[in-house]
């Protein structure tokens, strides 16, 4: 794959909820066109990391650069406008709105509105389930379909980088497979698109990502290429029990 340079650089980031610090000096890098997985047990600080990058939590110290521009401390809507978008494990959908309305709202930022049709077609292409259920209320769908919708809504923001928080949580294996197939299709279609994926399910994540970090107790404890380093590393055994 052609090297496109660093898209997201997180430098020595510390963060947490109020007085409770859960992230201690985390650094990582995502290149354009790359899928990077952050693996680690529950409570390792993975979701805190994503929320801090997204401006939903204020970092105590450290810096976040996106496209060489410093974005830490910016409000979330600015970071969305820069081209980062987040899909949370809790989905956070608009339950009384239809699938289509949820997707439309994903394109709320000005840049995304111009490419609305194009992105809508892309989302409905990678998750055909959503196409069938366009007029159904989001709150009445199954967990897996809601997860697809949450990811689809995040993709509607016309981002360059998708932060993906545990897309497999609580889902049946067949749904997890459908979601990862959709994501693989997305990476084929969208040149230069990047994903920072946070997962507990090591198998799915390592099959999808090219680079991996392992987090534990709010710190990065290992980084390397998925194919070689991460899968064979002793850390896999120590921290993830596989």
């Amino acid at each position, binding site marked *: 794959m052609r090297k496109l340079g660093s898209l997201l650089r997180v430098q020595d980031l510390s963060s947490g909820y109020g007085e409770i610090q859960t992230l201690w000096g985390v650094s990582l890098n995502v290149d354009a066109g790359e899928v990077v997985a952050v693996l680690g047990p529950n409570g390792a600080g993975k979701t805190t990391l994503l929320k801090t990058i*997204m401006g*939903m939590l204020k970092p105590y110290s450290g810096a976040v650069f996106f496209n060489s521009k410093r974005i830490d401390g910016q*409000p*979330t*809507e600015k970071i*969305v*406008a820069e081209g980062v*978008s*987040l*899909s*949370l494990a*809790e989905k*956070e*959908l*608009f*339950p*009384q*709105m239809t699938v289509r*309305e949820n997707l*439309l*709202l*994903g394109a*709320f*930022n000005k840049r995304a*509105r111009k490419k609305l049709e194009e992105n809508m077609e892309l989302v409905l292409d990678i998750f055909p389930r959503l196409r069938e259920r366009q007029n159904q209320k989001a709150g009445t769908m199954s967990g897996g379909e809601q997860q697809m919708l949450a990811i689809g*809504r*995040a993709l*509607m*923001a016309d981002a360059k980088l998708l932060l993906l928080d545990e897309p497999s949580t609580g889902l049946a294996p067949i749904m997890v497979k459908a979601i990862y197939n959709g994501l693989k299709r997305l990476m084929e279609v969208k040149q230069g698109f990047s994903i920072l994926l946070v997962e507990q399910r090591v198998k799915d994540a390592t099959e999808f990502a090219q680079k991996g970090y392992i987090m534990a107790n709010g710190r990065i404890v290992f980084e390397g290429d998925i194919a070689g380093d991460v899968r064979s590393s002793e850390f896999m055994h120590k921290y993830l029990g596989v």
Partner: protein
Amino acid sequence: MDASSLLFVLDGLVLGTILSLIAVGLTMIYGLAGVLNLSHGEILVTGTVASSILLQYTGLPLPLSLAAGVLVTIGAGVFIEKVILRPVYALEGDERVLLGLYITLAFSILLHGILLTTFPTAYLTINLPTPTIDLNGIRLRTAQIFAGGFSSLFLVILFFFLKRSWTGMAIRSLTQNEVGALLVGVNVRRYRLLVFVLGSLLVALAGIIRSVVATVGPENGFEFTILALLVCVVGGVRSVYGTIVAGLMLGVVYSFLVYLIGTYLAYVALLAVVMVTLLVRPYGIVGEKL
């Protein structure tokens, strides 16, 4: 149906659309800010008092006086959001709802006192040039048609605004999931202010329309708040569409009750109707759980 009961239905619908205009603002503000604004009826009266004062003492033409009244109401709404409710936003959940109730109730009593003691005679009544028209032998008050027509028009505009425009969609998204709205890039604070402006605009328009069919005096504020609260609760506290339907329903019911048992008992009976409705449908007629 005979002609007189038809007139009562019309009467009720007109009252209903006015109540809906007031209550919709209350619903949206509650949905977005988590505050049940008990001074909402009082700022309606603030607007009509301002218009009335301008008409009486400055000789400003009617349309300009009314426009100035609308601006005063919007100003009061912005003041509530930016100043009065500042400490409320530091709290979350039930605590926010409670403190919001106390503070807006206090502000409402304060406003009521100021308006009543300073401008006790600032009544607003707008008389249309032709009072009645004949329609197939039924004499209709033009004021009713005017009032019903305009408030329906505003409600329809509001409906499409919420359904179709980006701003309207953002408002609805915030009432359903604040984190979700944040994720798609909606600025919570800006829209909270916007919804106060919108709610104030609607309540100001309701005040003007009400003064076409009746007289609005400086003492009427609390009555509007109470009626609007009833409409909100019956409609389902966060549902705009439910609020509109409930407004129409209560308006018609109230008009018939006035006709059947007189003004005083009608109020009591209306409350009974609301109680029964809530016993049967605790989440309001639209029935969305929070």
